[in-house]
């Protein structure tokens, strides 16, 4: 089992849950430790309940895990909600002035901080947070200078006095713990590695910058807004035009306009905004103008639960916009992959002149992960496909007025001239058109031409399929159990497989990254030998299971689904697998024990 250490910080929105989380994250990553952070929060600016989990360790930390080692409740509510989840060896550091502890499980240490005696709480409203951070780090066996360095950075903008004051409070907490609290059994190690810590939204925004995106626009919508924030803050340095638009209909059409003029352009939204973009997706496909749209799923339908995660938009992606058209659809597997997938899908979109959709979710968009900085590659391969950007670049077409924008070819790909190039004027149309771009929806309507154009566009589907790698099976081929997931569940399924294997149930994993094209034959080749297959997904109806069945006729042995807004924890999957192996059920819906 991987050695990990998890901290939970809970409180009301506005109480400063994020700052201690950021401080821990920085300290861990600078010690060369991996980390994974997930913030369970609500659609409220002040009040409510927020619970941040930061899990760290020397190896990859792929999910938030099952247990907490340290709980820092910032109010009574957080104490009441979470103390019961602590198990032997864990500790709870809390402000004994304002919070009454509950009854913990055996072996859980209650560490009370007399906050008003240790700090001037009239001057510093978040003294309890800083004291708790100091105390916690002491118990983890981390030297004080690491904290001092991060606090100095954190409060630098507020001046030296604020830095000194916070360092002083943290030191008091640190020393108080050393005198009164028992250190954790496993002091946090240190490695020589250095990691970048980032959210999936930042990763996708940076991936866009790396892919050469020059136009990004959006309408704010949780949980996708982080992409807009990174883009807006870095636009001028990265040379990207970033606009906030009146609605998502405007967003998708502006994105198409910029793409048509020759730049790589991208936008991001969540399910509701994506619904407004649907018609635009069809326009991109019909005009054969490539663009990339990111959908960060949240719990639906309708406004749903804006701050909670789900994998419930799959069928919207598959069915978005009427008519048949080629599209590429990929679901990143983790936060590092959020970066990598953007240049990849842009190459596909550009080569095949069609929309590319990235299907992310709140878990990745707003979660944070340590990533090897070398994996944030700003020089990925860029393939713009058959693009005519100047009169002399044209090989497949001529510039004497005979240019056919939608020339019928074997691959279905027609060389694309961008506006401004002499000799290539043409109209790109949303109506069906002929090879030259002339509308065949009015007086020139012609079933033969219509059929030829449909077939030309749809021939690109085969090209996309061969350009995208098929999925692979991870783990032993002859395992007792095969867990099938897609997108963001990669990490938690991986850990569930490890736990199951340790417990004597060998397990392997098939994780789907490219949803369109699906590579049904390759999937069937993998699954035909599987003994017991279970599809794990974060939605009610088994959207992927239904999709896989529709494409391959494959029916799994069982399903594990969760649609309460919170992500899977490893034990949810492990227990469900055991339940299904015992023959009790073929559909498990694990309950989320943490009330967030």
């Amino acid at each position, binding site marked *: 089992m991987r050695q990990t250490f998890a901290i939970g910080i809970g409180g009301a929105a506005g109480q400063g849950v994020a700052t201690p989380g950021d401080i821990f994250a920085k300290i861990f*990553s600078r010690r060369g430790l991996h980390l994974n952070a997930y913030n369970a929060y609500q659609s409220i600016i002040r009040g409510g309940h927020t619970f941040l989990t930061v899990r760290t360790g020397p190896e990859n930390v792929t999910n938030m895990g099952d247990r907490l080692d340290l709980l820092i409740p910032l109010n009574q509510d957080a104490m009441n909600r979470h103390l019961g989840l602590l198990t032997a060896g864990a500790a709870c550091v809390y402000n004994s002035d304002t919070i009454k502890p509950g009854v913990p499980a055996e072996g859980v240490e209650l560490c009370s901080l007399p906050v008003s005696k240790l700090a001037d709480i009239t001057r510093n409203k978040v003294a309890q947070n800083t004291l708790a951070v100091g105390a916690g780090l002491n118990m983890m066996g981390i030297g004080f200078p690491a904290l001092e360095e991060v606090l100095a950075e954190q409060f630098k903008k507020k001046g030296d006095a604020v830095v000194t004051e916070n360092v002083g409070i943290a030191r008091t907490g640190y020393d108080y713990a050393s005198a009164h609290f028992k250190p954790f059994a496993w002091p946090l190690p240190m490695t020589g590695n*250095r990691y*970048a*810590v*980032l959210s999936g939204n930042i990763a996708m925004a*940076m991936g866009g*910058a790396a892919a050469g995106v*020059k*136009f990004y*626009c959006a309408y704010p919508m949780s949980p996708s807004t982080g992409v807009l924030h990174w883009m807006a803050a870095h*636009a*001028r*340095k*990265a*040379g*990207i*035009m*970033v606009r906030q*638009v*009146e*609605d998502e*209909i*405007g967003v998708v*059409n*502006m*994105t*198409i*306009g*910029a*793409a*048509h*003029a*020759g*730049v*790589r*352009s991208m936008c991001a939204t969540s399910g509701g905004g994506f619904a407004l973009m649907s*018609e*635009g997706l069809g*326009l991109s496909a019909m*005009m054969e103008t490539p663009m990339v749209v990111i959908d960060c799923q949240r719990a639906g339908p309708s406004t749903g639960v804006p701050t909670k995660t789900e994998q419930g938009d799959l069928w919207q992606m598959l069915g978005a916009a009427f008519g048949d058209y080629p599209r590429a659809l990929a679901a990143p597997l983790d936060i590092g992959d959020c970066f990598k997938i953007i240049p990849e899908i842009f190459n596909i979109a550009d080569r095949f002149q069609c929309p590319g959709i990235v299907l992310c979710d709140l878990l990745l968009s707003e979660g944070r992960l340590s990533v090897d*900085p070398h994996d*944030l590659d*700003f*020089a990925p391969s*860029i393939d713009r496909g058959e693009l005519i950007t100047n009169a002399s670049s044209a090989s497949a077409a001529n510039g004497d007025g005979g240019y056919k924008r939608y020339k019928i070819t074997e691959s279905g790909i027609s060389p694309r001239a*961008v*506006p*401004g*190039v*002499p000799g*290539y004027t*043409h*109209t*790109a*149309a949303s109506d069906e058109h002929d090879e030259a*771009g*002339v*509308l065949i929806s*009015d007086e*020139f309507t012609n079933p033969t031409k219509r059929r030829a154009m449909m077939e030309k566009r749809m021939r690109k589907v085969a090209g996309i399929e061969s350009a995208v790698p098929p999925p692979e099976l991870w783990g032993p081929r002859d395992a007792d159990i095969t867990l099938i997931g897609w997108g963001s569940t990669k990490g938690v399924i991986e850990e569930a497989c490890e736990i199951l294997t340790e417990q004597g149930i060998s397990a392997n994993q098939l994780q789907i990254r490219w949803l369109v094209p699906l590579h049904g034959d390759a999937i069937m080749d993998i699954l035909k030998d599987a003994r017991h297959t279970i599809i794990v997904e974060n939605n009610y109806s088994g959207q992927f299971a239904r999709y896989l069945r529709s494409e391959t006729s494959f029916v799994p042995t069982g399903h594990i689904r969760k649609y309460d807004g919170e992500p899977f924890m490893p034990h949810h999957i492990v227990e469900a697998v055991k339940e299904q192996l015992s023959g009790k059920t073929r559909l498990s819906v694990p309950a989320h024990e943490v009330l967030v």
Partner: protein
Amino acid sequence: MATALAANIHVAMADLKGKVDPDWCPGCGDFGVLAAVQKALVELQIPNHNVVTISGIGCSSNFPGFINTYGMHTLHGRALAVATGVKLANHDLTVLVTGGDGDGFGIGGNHFVHSMRRNVDLLYIVMDNQIYGLTTGQTSPTSRVGMKTKSMPFGNIEAPVNPISLALAAGATFVARGFSAEQKHLTELIKQGIRHKGFSFLDVFSPCVTYNHDNTYQWFRPRVKKLEDDRAHDPTDWMAAMGKSVLWDEEIPIGKFFERTDVPSLHGAEPVLNAGPLAYAEMRIPVDVAQAFVEELM
């Protein structure tokens, strides 16, 4: 709209003839608008490859297919959003947006208002026939109260939108109205709208001879009065323009209501574009900049 003049290229009417002839009904006002746009481009000598004509959906939105420039025939109501993307990606291009009153003031109303306040540098020509033509004659946002159509057979009970007042209120920096039957006057307005650096709105009375029997050529002719003939009219006076915009019935002003040149266009206000159009920009982020982006996360 900025113009992009290329040396040694002579633009003639023949260069601007589309791949197919317009299939508008004989007598449609849109013919006059097409001819005026072509004349304006010839008079301004803008090479056709530097022009992008973008439309939505509707009779008048078939316009890009009938003129030989780069063209985009987009979704119903979305032409301005697409055009904004085109202009921001390559501000060297002359962007013309063409469409009808339903496309622009109905389904596209939201983009219309926001494009004006953004002062996107383009010329937006609305061929306003006060009716839905391609869907065979329903009430439009500019149909008069009382007008009987297939969708409101007992007469329209909704007040029409006033495109000129709306454009003035939304911050358009060039606001004008033309009449399809006044070719010279219309051509001049189009030229001015193209030259204007910012959002130019040109509402054109373009009678629908098939479905609108109220607002015909005969109805407009005695009513339209050119603002250029009114010596007292000062197009830099916004309040006066607003006053003129509400005139209707007996006397309907056409011409330039308003122009201001002191507001930067959207692309002019964004320093990212200072180095030139993004369409020609290096795609790769400089190594030191990329390194700094990663360092922020460590």
